[in-house]
């Protein structure tokens, strides 16, 4: 006997499908965890990847889900790094406290500057976000008495994570810590993008005019997601400061904003894993190319960027990674032929 599906059940099922866990996702996180025990000697790069992934995830909330393009996202990364670094330097040794403080500081500045990116075209947003990052960079440079200026912020001493896990020389704790934070914030982001709030962001991304015409407060939603993304970026910066025990002006520099955008373009926007997959590819390629021709790294970055944008990421990926296309779809990557 077949039970007919009443429409309401069908609708509920269709909506529930959006947020369901897929097997490749579980496998991915299991692998990332396994690396914590199986890849000694690679912890430093794994830690960097986890941090970059979190940074890119934060940008995905803006670009992929809300359609806000930013070329100054390092502003919040850097702010988080300095906040965590300064706290540790002045005696607050618990890393988790530093994370919350960094998130708070970045969220505050994110909220304040969100009003600058509410209106305007992509181009205005790019210019404004670059501008905000430049201003913060210059402030950090001028306040050398606090930040160490061009010498960087030294003398950061971190206590054990949650009073238990000491940082070790090989970076195992560092990677474990960054991975754990990435995972928790990923879960939170996943929850948010599959909520009504998250869906309304996608609506704004697709068509702000119509979004307002169905009663969505476009401005308010964008302020909220910009603030959230800033907090995420702040946490990523804090992780870098805490696990490397050093902060330099480099955290606020333009190339960081450009790199993270490139990471996200490589991995793809709007399905949360793009930033993570992009971060893995980006760092591995960076390592390889840097070994081959260290001084030409930015030559390669530039070339890849031009090719990706001109030829179209979808097509490059389709060509290079045709065998993986199905796999990516199973991560929930939306198929968006025009």
């Amino acid at each position, binding site marked *: 006997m077949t039970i007919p599906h009443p*429409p*309401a059940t069908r*609708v*509920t099922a*269709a*909506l*529930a499908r*959006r*947020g369901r866990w897929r097997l490749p996702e579980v496998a991915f996180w299991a692998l990332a965890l396994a690396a914590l025990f199986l890849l000694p000697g690679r912890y430093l790069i794994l830690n960097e990847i986890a941090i970059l992934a979190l940074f890119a995830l934060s940008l995905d909330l803006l670009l992929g889900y809300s359609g806000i393009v930013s070329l100054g996202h390092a502003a919040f990364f850097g702010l988080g790094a300095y906040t965590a670094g300064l706290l540790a330097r002045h005696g607050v040794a618990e890393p988790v406290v530093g994370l919350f403080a960094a998130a708070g500081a970045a969220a505050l500045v994110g909220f304040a500057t969100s009003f600058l990116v509410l209106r305007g075209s992509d181009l205005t947003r790019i210019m404004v976000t670059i501008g905000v990052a430049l201003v913060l960079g210059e402030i950090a440079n001028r306040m050398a008495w606090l930040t160490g200026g061009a010498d960087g912020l030294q003398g950061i001493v971190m206590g054990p994570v949650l009073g238990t896990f000491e940082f070790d020389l090989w970076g195992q704790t560092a990677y474990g810590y960054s991975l754990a934070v990435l995972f928790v914030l990923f879960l939170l982001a996943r*929850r*948010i993008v*599959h*909520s*009504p*709030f*998250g*869906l*309304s962001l*996608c*609506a704004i991304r*697709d*068509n702000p*005019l*119509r*979004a*307002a*015409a*169905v*009663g*969505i*407060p*476009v*401005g308010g*939603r964008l302020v909220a997601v910009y603030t959230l993304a800033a907090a995420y970026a702040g946490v990523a910066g804090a992780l870098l400061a805490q696990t490397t025990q050093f902060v330099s002006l480099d955290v606020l520099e333009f190339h960081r904003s450009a790199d993270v955008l490139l990471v996200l373009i490589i991995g793809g926007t709007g399905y949360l894993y793009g930033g993570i997959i992009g971060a893995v590819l980006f760092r591995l390629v960076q390592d390889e190319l840097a070994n081959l021709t260290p001084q030409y790294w930015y030559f390669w970055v530039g070339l890849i960027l031009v090719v990706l944008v001109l030829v179209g990421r979808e097509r490059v990926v389709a060509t290079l990674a045709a065998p993986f296309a199905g796999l990516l779809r199973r991560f929930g990557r*939306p198929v*968006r032929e025009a």
Partner: protein
Amino acid sequence: MAPALRTIGLHKNFGGLVATADVSLTLEPGARHALIGPNGAGKTTFVNLLTGVLTPSAGRILLEGADITGESAHRRVRRGLARTFQINQLFRDLTPLETIGLAVSERQGTGRDWWRRVGTKGAVIGEIVAIAERFGLGDALEERTATLPYGKQRLLEIAIAFACRPRVLLLDEPAAGVPEAERHEILAAVAALPRDVAVLLIEHDMDLVFSFADRISVLVNGALFRDGTVEEIARDPAVRAVYLGEEADA
């Protein structure tokens, strides 16, 4: 009882071009009101002013007696003023299911829930199903909106405006560009709108206008040229001249 919608001396100019000229128009509760006029007369501009897409240069807008001239677009929707667009404005990458769901949950006040999963509120689901059935979108609910046939997209335009449960509904050429064979579906949906909703219909097809409306306003060069019952407008030689002139051009 206050009129459903009223404008007082509404005016809009784009630089030197006057797109809306001192328009004072009243829409009674539950009205079936048509707004007609030649291409470029300013009909869409008028709707954009009413819904807050454009800011008027002068004049006031009252919705059920309350001044909404300075309110943001989404607040007007919450107060009960919804519209469709002459050129589809839909969420291309979302499904009709998600699109209608957005409108419904925004109206029910749960649109900003950030912790709850989409699709876990029975009240939202029930309303989505009812709206989908009403507008014949049941089979298309899970398709990507951009891939829907044009006629279905036009129906979705009306469906999501309806999902806002408006007191006043502005329909900007709902059947524009729809092939003849699919027009009746849209016209039926428009005819079946609840009687207590005041509807302002912009439309070029005079047969449709006459069968739908009980009042007609004629806009020419941004200004209100005539305003009256269907019989008055149908008999008016000046209106006929405007329209015959139009047809001679076309």
